């Protein structure tokens, strides 16, 4: 397994004002698996993603990602982990505004020491003609493609996506999901966090959270659907 979470809990605060974001979570993700983490607002899905991506630490349990026990890792090891094991795609893109599309993706190459070429990856996401554009000159969908390209170019085995279609219209969102799914089949584990049940239909597996607990973990209801079949 490329992601292993055992008895993971996350609490904020202490005593009477303590908030339990996650409790008794177990999660296993295989390489090349496309997993959707589904849940309403406040269910803990973002917290789960933060913990897997080493942006946050678990209060209890063990977290093993890409063979590394990050629950006991030092700060330095966590930085190394994020460089070599995971890549993020954010809801609000978080591109560097002073860099062009190509330069934003080049950042991913430099951060991870990847052998891939930014132009090739941008071409693969359909932005071959937008290399010299700044983020404010791109549409929302194009910006998200750049963000995905930046994540893909690192060549890391795990892709963590937080509501990647949250700021996009339906058609653009479909295109983005299609891209993500294609790269999952390339040997990369893809975890997508969303509240949109329709998106979960395209996953290999759906992990549903409610009030910090995993309430279900299995194939999508009604079977896996093709991206083209989705509608919201």
């Amino acid at each position, binding site marked *: 397994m490329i992601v292993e979470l055992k008895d993971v809990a996350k609490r904020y605060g202490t005593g009477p004002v303590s908030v339990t974001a996650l409790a008794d979570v177990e999660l296993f993700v295989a390489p090349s698996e496309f997993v959707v983490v589904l849940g309403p607002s406040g269910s803990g899905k973002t917290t789960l993603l933060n913990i897997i991506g080493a942006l946050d630490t678990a209060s209890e349990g063990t977290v093993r990602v890409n063979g590394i026990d990050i629950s006991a890792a030092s700060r330095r090891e966590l*930085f190394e982990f994020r460089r070599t094991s995971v890549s*993020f795609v954010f809801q609000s893109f978080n591109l560097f505004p002073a860099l062009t599309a190509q330069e934003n993706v080049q950042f991913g190459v430099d951060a991870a020491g990847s052998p891939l070429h930014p132009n090739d990856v941008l071409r693969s996401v359909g932005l071959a003609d937008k290399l010299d554009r700044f983020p404010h000159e791109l549409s929302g969908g194009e910006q998200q493609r750049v963000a995905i390209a930046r994540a893909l170019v690192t060549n890391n085995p795990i892709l963590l996506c937080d509501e990647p279609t949250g700021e996009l219209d339906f058609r653009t969102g479909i295109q983005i999901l299609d891209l993500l799914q294609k790269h999952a089949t390339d040997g990369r584990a893809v975890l997508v966090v969303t509240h949109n049940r329709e998106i979960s239909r395209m996953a290999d597996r759906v992990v549903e959270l409610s009030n910090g607990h995993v309430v279900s973990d299995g194939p999508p209801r009604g079977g896996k659907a093709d991206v083209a079949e989705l509608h919201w």
Partner: protein
Amino acid sequence: MKALSLILRWSWRDLRAHWAKVLSIALVIAIGTGAYAGLTSNANWRRLSYDASYSSLDMYDVRVALATGGYLQESELASAAAQIAHSEWIGAVEERLVVPTQVDASTPTESIVVRGEITGADFSDGGPSVNGYHAFTGRLLTDADAGQPVVMLDRNFARFYALPDGGTIEISGGRPLGYVGQATTPEYFTVSPEGEIFLSEANFAGVFTTLETAQQLASREGAINGAVITLVPGADRDLVVAELEATLGSLGVGTEVSTRDDNLSYKALTEDVDNDQRIFNVLAFLLFSGAVVAAYIMLHRLAQQQRREIGVAMALGVPPRRIAVRPLLVSAQIAVLGVVFGVGIGMLVGNAMQGIMENFVPLPIWQTPFQTRLFAGVAVAGFLIPFLATAIPVVNAVRVKPVDAIRPLYHKAVPIGRRGRKVHTHGSTFSRMPVHNLRRSPWRSGFTTLAVGLVVMVLIAFFGLMDSIFGAIDDAEVEATGTLPDRAVVSLDGFYPADAPQIAAIGDAATVAKAEPTLRVGGRISTPVEEIDVLVELLNLRTAMWRPTLTEGAPDHEPGVILAEKAAADLGVEVGDTVTLRHPQRAGPLSFTFSDSQLPVLGLHPYPVRNFVYMDAADASVMGLTGVVNTVQVDPVDTVAEGDLQRELFSLPGVASVLPVLSVTQALEEQMGVFTSVIQLIAVLVLVLAVLIAFLTSSISLDARVREHATMFAYGVRIRTALRMAVTESVIIGVVATVIGIAGGLAMLSWMTSSLLASTLPDVGLNVVLDLATIVTVVVLGVVAVAVAPLFNVRRMRRLDLPGTLRLVE
């Protein structure tokens, strides 16, 4: 009410989040306004203090001095004054006896032998009633001290040599006198003995005693040789002077009647006020401008960071006026803090300047009241600037469409390089990003660079002015000492033939290795452009043991003058041009007139004071003074102890004073002392300003890039890599700002030395000098401090809430 409550709570949270920046910007404004108020108050303080001090000690309105060697009996002068036509205008008359002397105030660790003057006055009935005394240490003399060998020492002299409050001195003839205190009197508020230039507290000692004691010391029982007179309010002073001159002419002894305005000390203090203030005003304006513009730029950047939130608020339909309240509340906080701190800094500067002034001019009364009106003027500017700095970006934001306000203010790279082609940088993103960030936000980069550059410019102006002043003093020392650092100038009490026994006695003194007689006369040099009072020294320009260095020209067989470079520039002449020298001309065995001679400029010397002119001794024939001398240049024996030379030569007949050549430089240093002390005081504030600007530049930049940093950290980029990028960006800003600042500072310094100081200190020539220490300081602050400032944000970066900053949404 609810809306107001929300705004106030929100504003409080803004303050908590940005308190360091708010405080820093407020301090920047406070430094500018407070220092401005302090510096520009100087003239008011000095006038208030001078008026109060002169009034408290009843400085004379009219002074009567008998010719050298002339004496009258006590009450003769007072009686004569009572006989003038308008005697009802006479307020009080104090007769006195003034006796030149040598003063030996040597301590176990320092030999102190200087020329001095004993002033004897009537201390009975709480007097003297004109030109009273104020004791800084010890006690004042009283009637009980009449005829006793006790005196008071001039405070300036005693303070310069750090003498104890009481002790013993010796005067001419080795006679000991006990001094019971250190005091001042109006004629000694600053040391400017009549008939001398460049004497200072280092080489002239005022000794104050009772009239009876002075008479005993001078062996002149019952004698006086002067009087000081106060007039009643409304008296016509000039008429009183005329009537006194007419009445005193019948006494059969030469008298000179002068007024307070003729007193060199009084003139030096009162005339300097406006001249000095002009310089302080320029320095104040420079500092105020730099601080205020820098604060404006920092606030502008801070306000611009709220542009996105403003756009969101507009999208929600909030009216622009209400949108503006929150950022303007931040401005209000800064404005209020700026004024409060400004008052504090203004008072601190005032207290510090009082200390400086007390140190240089010990007065009985120093008043440095806070100048509310002056401060209010700049406080208004300091109060309005934060609002202006915030209002402009807020107004710009609410005027555009909400979507444009939300959009970041990035523009395409300004095309640079030849023919408008973009310059493509090479290397990894981490090395290119700092350059890209700067290029693609040219206004932000430009304003930040300007803010830092202004502070660098102020630093160069302040420190450069000090360097230039000290450079002139060093030049003076080098030129004056030449190869004979212990050289001294013996002034005689009159003109003597060069082969007179008095001259030979000086050369034969045990402490003298070599002696050369010279002639010094006062005069005036003029051209159609300018007139300069000068001291002309006639010596052998080819073989004298000390000769002026010639930077241009050479002595000629024809009579001519060697001018200071400053004098030549001011007179508008070069070597070979002709000037008019007004000089004493012997008319008879003991009489002189003044006549004008047209003389060529033979050469130029580098001494920074323009009043010194040299001629060859052979040219004394122009003045009818061939073979006549009144000074002797001496080089002491190598093994002679300091002070022994003065002691031996003072005891010789005809010797009026023995001055080390460095005494002139000391006087120059003292003349500049007030400036350099004030500049040093303000320079501390400038340094604080520079550090604050460096901090603000870095802190505000960090705020602007917090999301980018969070994204980098999410991708595993190390903190040190992000810091390196921030440092690189800061270095670029720092280098460009420092270069701009140095260029601007040098231009300002050049103007100050050539134009401003030329009108306020016309006799001193200053070259633009920048010490290595100044350049290092400027580079350290302008580049290193700005570059290093991001490193102080390591903790902030380490504690960055990545999820929150990245806005991972539930």
